[in-house]
């Protein structure tokens, strides 16, 4: 009995030593080497792909933002600032509930199911809002024109992109609100549209932050 306890302890000790040795390799050397290479060769990307406009950091090209009006008294949710292109809904995005000395973005999806009443209502409301917001005199958005990404939340809640179709139906509204010609704004969207990577990877998309920065530049020029 005593003998087998000793043996077990000895074996467990070997396991622990193996873990510590491999921690040195995979938990210390490996991340440090990769970080060294990353910081040396891809400094900006390794630190969050920040975008600067007019000398100020305005976010990361990879992380979606909201383009809302400031909250008014009595409002629970802010209304979108319709001068700017809008991103996808982000109903799964939250704030941190632990370590609250920080105010962190908590990525996430809604996880609502395809047959969920809640999700159905959200999609219908979002679709109505997209049609209402983007229809301007002389241009009416039809329900069939609203692409799925405009009315659904992404997996991360931080999706930086929208589909070119969603950007296109926002063109008339953005032009009208900013006193720009539809043709110029449409050209902006076209310029900022990225096709599939190598022609077949993923889906075509428009980065909303980059599009809004370009829009701001355009307004500054005109």
């Amino acid at each position, binding site marked *: 009995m005593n003998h087998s306890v000793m043996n077990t302890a000895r074996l467990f000790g070997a396991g622990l030593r193996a873990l510590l040795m491999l921690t040195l390799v995979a938990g210390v050397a490996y991340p440090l080497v990769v970080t060294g290479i990353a910081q040396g060769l891809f400094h900006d990307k390794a630190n969050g792909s920040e975008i600067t406009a007019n000398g100020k950091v305005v976010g990361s090209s990879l992380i979606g933002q909201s383009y809302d009006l400031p909250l008014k008294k009595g409002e629970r949710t802010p209304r979108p600032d319709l001068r700017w292109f809008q991103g996808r809904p982000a109903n799964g995005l939250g704030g941190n509930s632990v370590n609250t000395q920080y105010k962190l973005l908590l990525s*996430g999806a809604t*996880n609502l199911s*395809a047959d969920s009443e809640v999700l*159905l209502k*959200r999609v219908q409301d979002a679709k109505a809002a997209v049609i209402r917001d983007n229809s301007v005199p002389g241009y009416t958005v039809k329900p069939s024109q609203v692409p799925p990404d405009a009315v659904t939340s992404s997996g991360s809640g931080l999706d930086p992109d929208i589909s070119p179709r969603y950007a296109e139906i926002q063109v008339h509204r953005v032009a009208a609100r900013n006193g720009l010609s539809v043709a110029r704004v449409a050209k902006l969207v076209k310029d900022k549209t990225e096709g599939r990577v190598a022609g077949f*990877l993923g889906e075509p998309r428009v980065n909303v932050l980059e599009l809004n920065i370009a829009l701001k530049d355009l307004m500054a020029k005109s």
Partner: protein
Amino acid sequence: MGPVLAGVAQLLALMAALALVYVPLGTYMARVYSSDRHWRVERWIYKGIGANPDAEMRWAAYLRGVLAFSAAGVLFLYLLQRLQGSLPGSLGFSSIEPAQAFNTAASFVTNTNWQSYSGEQAMGHVVQTSGLAVQNFVSAAVGMAVAVALVRGFARSRTGELGNFWADLVRGTVRVLVPVAAVAAVVLVACGALQNFSGIHEVGQFMGGSQAWNGGAVASQEAIKELGTNGGGYFNANSAHPFENPTPFTNLFEIFLILVIPLSLTRTFGVMVGSVKQGYAILATMVTIWAGFTALMMWTEFAHHGPALQAAGGAMEGKEARFGVGASSIFAVSTTLTSTGAVDSFHSSFTGLGGGITMLGMMLGEIAPGGVGSGLYGMLIMAIIAVFIAGLMVGRTPEYLGKKIGSREIKLAACYILITPALVLVFTSASLALPTPPHSMLNSGAHGFSEVLYAFTSASNNNGSAFAGLNANTDWFNTTTGLAMLLGRFLPMIFVLALAGSLAGQRPVPATAGTLRTEKPLFSGLLVGAILIVTGLTYFPALALGPLAEGLA
């Protein structure tokens, strides 16, 4: 090019890339596990352990090594989380509560990476990099070691010796996982994945104000998370988060990393048993199931049935715009048919049938192609079952790779395939029968049932993905899923190693005209059939209550 065609093109490109590395990587791994030379760094590690890497172990000794190393892993990771509040380099994050710390420790040591926490708000640099990421490597290396031990059981005769666990563990880590992961991590950073040790990062926003996120060694963890079929995300949104998976290219690259070792190990198996054709037969079985599931998934996701998805005009809920439906479908199938469990889109919001496909993928037992190592040994167990069924049909004692499948072997294989279904069904029923656990469900009805069934399927099969609406951070779910993960990982390993010992002790049976040709397409077909029938019979009633009820409503 339409989205469907682009999805198919991505699938074909992925298969071409996997085919390209199959022979070199598979052959290299066979050399790694057969070589009698030690690298210098490996000698240092053996010295540190105090182990002789050349000493042969019988199955029981090999198993003791696996269990001792894994027990040390659970204890170390548990303590690391419990002490986080006092550790430097932890961003000032507080310690993890006991039930959750146990769950997470069990989860990462068993290669499951089920997460009842949200990475970006709970885990600091030290726990992520020196705790969680290390288990991403070594739990994968343990799986490979056990698979190699089983392969040696087939390859060797009239000996009970299966190799040395410490040598297999260290070589898998040092010669296979670390070098490939390092290259992959740099590729990910080049595309935009984070890799730094800075603190909480606060950046300005376009409309004013600022947003804050938790930086860290993301790319280095992402690489091994996929390569080791682990799946535990640095961030809550896992591979849907743009800092983990920034572009459509990284998305396909990550799927490639998930599949590359499990598939190439069939080559390693073929080389080590002296017939690469035997490896091809196993590979064909894996690829048939994987490709079939992917086609089904694309079909149901592009068709987007379900009221909310119909109203939206497409199945984009829980999916990222840069990936779209096609690439998300490939990822979802690959992550659930291996024991990865990383997600680039949220399975709970898939169509009813799509969610069912992810669940059925796990229920197959993670064998097509399965987790690193665990996929190969799981598939070889199924091959034994298939050979046995074929033997029953013609009334002769079945053989596989020159070894007799007698009553001892078939008992061990049968125990193996009974463990996970028992865990899944017992824990799911218990959770639904008790008064409080159902409060954790987000959705109601059939989908709520699916959330619980998915949780225990994922935990017991060491997958780790979730129908994430379920609030799993309760004492009940932390404890039961933790137990399901440990039992679902180590009980099968006991039977695999016992089987390996029994096979290695046999003398080989020469092949005769009556021997089933297990390297032929006919056998692959039989194997696919055996897998689908065994799984179907086991889980059909449970699936009918959940995803089938939802999908056919």
